[in-house]
Structures are given as C-alpha cells and as structure tokens.
C-alpha cells in the first residue's frame, strides 16, 4: 500500500480511521498525516509485536489530551493454526448517549405527586367499557400499588409487592380473600 493510497483510504473513512501499518511504511509517514490530530479513533494492524508497541505508544502519546481510542488487531500464524487478538487502548472515554436497551424507569413504585393524584382520581368502577379498556398500564400499576399499600398484605418494612397480588388485582379481579389467606404469612416473615 502506498502512502498516497493510504491517505485516500483514511479520508474516505470519517468514523473509524483504519491504518494498515507495516514496518516499511513506518511511523514517520503516520506522524506526518493529519488524521492523528483529527477526532477519529484508529484501528491498527501489525504483525510484529515490537512494531505494535511502538505504534501504539505513538498513538497514545500523540492523541493526548484528545483521548482518542485506538484498537490494535494482530494475527499470528503458527504452522497451520492462526491466532488473532483485538486489543484496545484509550484514556477514559465518557459516553452520554449509549442508546441502551434497558428503558428508563417510569417510577411506578415511587410515583411523583401529580402522577399519584391522577391515578387516584380515576374511578375505575364508574368508567364506561371503552374508557376502561384504554387506561394506560402505568396508571393501572400505580393504582394497584396504592391499593396494595392499604391492604393487609403490605409489608412496610420491605415495600415489596408480591407477584401474586399483582396478578389477582389486575387480571383475576379477585383480590381480597385469596390474597389475605395466601400472602399475609409470607410477607410478614420477610
């Protein structure tokens, strides 16, 4: 790979700069190219451990204080077997937008006053069938928790609601007697 070709390759990769470093290209070329000072993380590949160390030391030092992450990919052929490793080095990377799969809390168990007031103001028994079938689940759960707190099976110490209570309250619609007999003992033991 020639130096000019490598420069073009780097320029077309705005997110992740890929640097294929061989001993003969050397660090001098890398240090003269402008991508190091840009804000791109880098991926380097080399076959000799000594070269890898030198290159990564260079990347480590030259990207400070920008703290750009660099990944090192290495592969080694031993007879017919091939081993490879992908190693990374970076100063602390602070990430705010991680796009997690876990949804943020709706704070159902610690409902804020306005939510609690809204949920308590709904009279489930007086709603017509259509409205009853369109109450958001958040409101239903807040109400179930509130009802549970006033029931005999509520354990103030643990604040743990039992799965059985939720099931009977929401779906089975048969909360009182079954819960009192089935849930009181286990909860009082906690």
């Amino acid at each position, binding site marked *: 790979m020639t130096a000019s070709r490598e420069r073009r390759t780097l320029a077309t990769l705005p997110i992740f700069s890929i640097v294929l470093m061989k001993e003969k290209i050397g660090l001098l070329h890398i240090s003269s190219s402008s991508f190091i000072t840009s804000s791109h993380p880098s991926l380097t590949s080399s076959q000799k451990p000594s070269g890898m160390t030198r290159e990564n030391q260079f990347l480590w030092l030259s990207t400070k204080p920008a703290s750009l992450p660099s990944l090192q990919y290495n592969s080694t052929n031993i007879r017919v077997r091939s081993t490879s490793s992908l190693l990374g080095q970076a100063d602390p990377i602070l990430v*705010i937008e991680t796009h997690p799969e876990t949804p943020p809390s709706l704070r159902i168990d610690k409902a804020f006053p306005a939510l609690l007031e809204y949920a308590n103001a709904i009279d489930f028994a007086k709603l017509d069938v259509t409205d009853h079938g369109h109450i958001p689940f958040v409101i239903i759960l807040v109400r179930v928790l509130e009802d549970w707190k006033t029931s005999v099976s509520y354990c103030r110490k643990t604040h743990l609601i039992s799965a059985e209570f*939720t099931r009977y309250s*929401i779906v089975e619609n048969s909360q009182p007697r079954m819960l009192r007999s089935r849930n009181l003992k286990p909860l009082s033991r906690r």
Partner: protein
Amino acid sequence: MKVKIDEENFDEAFDQAYRAWTPTNVPSGITALFRDPTLASLRSDSPPFYHLLKALEDFSSEPPHVLPLTSTLPDMKADTKKYIELQKLYKERSLEEKDKFKQLLAKRGARVDEETIDSFVKNAHAIRLLRGRRWGAFDASSAELGGFSTSSYSWILSVV
C-alpha cells in the same frame, strides 16, 4: 380490575408488572461511577462530564434517591387523550427535575452548555465511563497475569 376478557391494557399492565415490584433506585453501574477518584478531586477545569456526574450524585442523594425522570414514555394501549395527559405529567415533572439538576450544577460553579445537560439528564440511567490502558500495560503486570510473565509466554511459543 379487569372487567372484560379482551382488555389489552390490563394484559399489558400484567406483562409490565415487574416495573411495579422492581424498586426504582440508582443503577449499580451509575453508583460505581460516583466512586470515581476524579470526582473527589474535581477542579473547575475538569471535563464537563465529571461536573455533571457530581451533580447527579447530589441529585440522587436526596429523597426519593432516584435519577432525574425522563419524559420518554413507551408506547402503550391507551386512547390519545389519556396518553397525552400522561405524557404531559411526565414531561412537566421531568422539566422540574431538570431545573433542580441545573441548580445543583450551578451551585458547584460548573459551566456546561444546555444541550449537553439536556442529553445527560435524558440518558442519565445509561451513562458510561470506558477505561482503556496503554498498550503493553497488561503484559507488563505480572500480578494481573497471575504470576505468568510475558517472557515465559514467549518461551512457550518458541517451544510450540
């Protein structure tokens, strides 16, 4: 509570019931960030992330010991009117809590731009601090290698 067998909102409530019995606390990953040594020696020129993190710690140390509320509501079986009413409740509360967070941040004399604060508060439950190490640091530490030095590793390779 469920009066008809086909009331999907109650089925949804049942499916989401774990949210009711899972206590809302500060996630352990975030609490671990509060123990970062940089927070103990926070200076005015420290990166904004650490100032935001410190303000978040202040926020969560007050009752009810939670992270700032996000206004994002998931999709749910509801009519438009009730959904919007609920969304407004969450939005108003999240704005209140964001203001409180900003006050805590201002109290520490930190200057962070509004956009970053908004993004931080919105994603407060999922912030991450990734730590890497300089190349070769792991190989140089025989303690981490369990007493196994890189020289013996080279020797094994040469034998193979």
